[in-house]
């Protein structure tokens, strides 16, 4: 299992990282908050901690801390466009329900 990126998502991340000029990869995580209990974390990663799990997907290092992995295992991160809006989307099989905004969820 683990966490993967779609090819579009990986391309965007590579471009963003290159543009940023530093960073070892992309950090995915969850934290408690939001209207449905959990919220996603999507950040550039400058360091990899000892306990972190690192997945390589289309040439991008995806870094997840072990606690978050419980909630994210099997997730595929996609990059899509919806009308004028574009951005990353978590396709997470663990989610039971998410709030209308999609920024938080329960498992």
């Amino acid at each position: 299992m683990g966490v993967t990126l779609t090819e579009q998502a990986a391309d965007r991340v590579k471009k963003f990282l290159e543009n940023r000029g530093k960073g070892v990869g992309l950090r995915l995580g969850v934290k408690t908050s939001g209207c449905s209990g959990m919220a996603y974390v999507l950040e550039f990663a400058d360091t990899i901690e000892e306990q972190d799990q690192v997945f390589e997907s289309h040439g991008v290092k995806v870094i997840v801390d072990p606690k978050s992995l419980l909630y994210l295992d099997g997730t595929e991160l996609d990059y899509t466009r919806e009308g004028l809006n574009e951005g990353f989307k978590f396709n997470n099989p663990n989610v039971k329900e998410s709030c209308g905004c999609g920024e938080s969820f329960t498992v």
Partner: protein
Amino acid sequence: MALLQISEPGQSEAPHQHRLAAGIDLGTTNSLVATVRSGVADTLPDAQGRHLLPSVVHYRREGPPLVGWEALERATTHPLDTIASVKRLMGRGVEDLKNLADRLPWEFVDTDSAVPRIRTSAGEVSPVEISAEILKVLRRRAEESLGGELTGVVITVPAYFDDAQRQATKDAARLAGLNVLRLLNEPTAAAVAYGLDRAEEGVIAVYDLGGGTFDISILRLEKGVFHVLSTAGDTALGGDDMDRLIAAWIMEQAGIPDDAGHHQLRRLMRDARAAKEALTGAGEVPLAIELEDGSTWHGTLDRERLNTLIDPLIRKTLSPCRRALRDAGVSAEEIREVVMVGGSTRVPRVREKVGEFFGRPPLVEIDPDKVVAIGAALQADLLAGNRPDGEMLLLDVTPLSLGIETMGGLVEKIIPRNTTIPVARAQEFTTYKDGQTAMTIHVLQGEREMVSDCRSLARFTLRGIPPMVAGAPRIRVTYQVDADGLLSVTAREQTSGVEASIEVKPSYGLEDAEVERMLRESLEHAEEDLEARRLREQQVEADRVLEALDAALAEDGERFLPADEREAVEAARARLAELRDGDDPQAIKRAIEALEAACAGFVERRMNARIQEAMTGHTVDEFE
């Protein structure tokens, strides 16, 4: 499902708390909105993929106004209801527009208010309201693209915009429901887009050649702050002029008469523009021009010919460059980077000539149409708090000095030009005459020494000063400029606490060219001004001495001035009165000293008598 963006490490926000910020380039011809997503700043397109929004608003009897391309299409069919280039009207008073009105196609409403209004099918509208319509469209676009409400925006304005024009821009934003984090100078935004604010220091030139205007700004970066050293330009020079020259050349080659129909001329302009744009990449382009008689003329335009055609135009941009350098007091060699802004800087010849002029290749990597909006977006992202701590916050500076009128029509500068804002400075003043109970504060903007050479921003009166002898009251005048360059002035008499203040709703009306002129003149006239100041200072002093003497003579002349001394005093007084109207400050100064010497005996005797009177009947202890 909401779409997410990548944050900086540790900067992930709780859901529903993203601080969405955007940068807006509110241009004369076109406007843009940009934002930072996943660390990348870019402009946002509309649903049709178009990034530029024409700064045109069309008012209709029914329905909301049309903005942008739809409005532009109606410019020729409904000229009275379609307002373009409203930026040129921002912050202008009715008086200023009287001079312009003959050249403007719209119908201005006669009004007593200081703000001009245009009559349209949808009622009367002000420039601020028209700008707000453009901003509303950009706001909607940004909020749809980002999937949420904007926390705040940074809007760019020309470096030469004065307080009135900046205030009008802010008002328009408020009307559009936008929270303005900061107004940012356009050249500064362009420099920020290239990350030049990350350097320690250096002098930067920003060359902005748009469709119809040209601006050159010289900036100095010092400890993360951009100072605008000078600006120059031409409000009627740009890419459209290139198109006209190319069209004229085609007409000559194809044998099209000068009095060709309006329709054909418009098509020619379009073809000329297309040829110019194609020549940015190609060495030559084929031309196929439809003639009135239905036949087609074929020809080619190559880069060399284009260069010959537009060279005079490019040369016309270089003389403001020279002027700006001279005003800034720097040489071309001192310029560290040259930033190119405006669509017309895509023309290879322009880049080549500008590169030659400044002795270095200009920065062209960022789309010159978007570079200002991108810089604004980076600032907005920073101000909204989406960047890791420690990144420097860009500060802006006052474009012109702010001062106060003092006796004799002189200007005392309170906040000098290029002071980092926000800033507050205070200075103490006092009364000039005995028993003076009111003082008029006249707020001025400009670099010159005399009131008549500066721009009057506001005037207000501090009343209720307790009657005291001249020079005793302490009146503290505080000038405060907020982060957007807007001024408030407070005057407070320290002993009694009476206070008066004003928000500068500046008396509208300063042409772009005028700011430039004011800056230039201050440099050219520096010496002359200093001389004028010295003269006025001595004249004011002479008046004060004469007035005090006359009052003293009227009161005590008989008692304390013997006839032999009186003759000398009167001779010295007459001499000072005569020299006071001359133009030699040194002579006036000497005459004042001579008069004071002649009066010495009189003053001493008078003073002793006064002290005696005051002390009579009291013990010395009472005075300790």
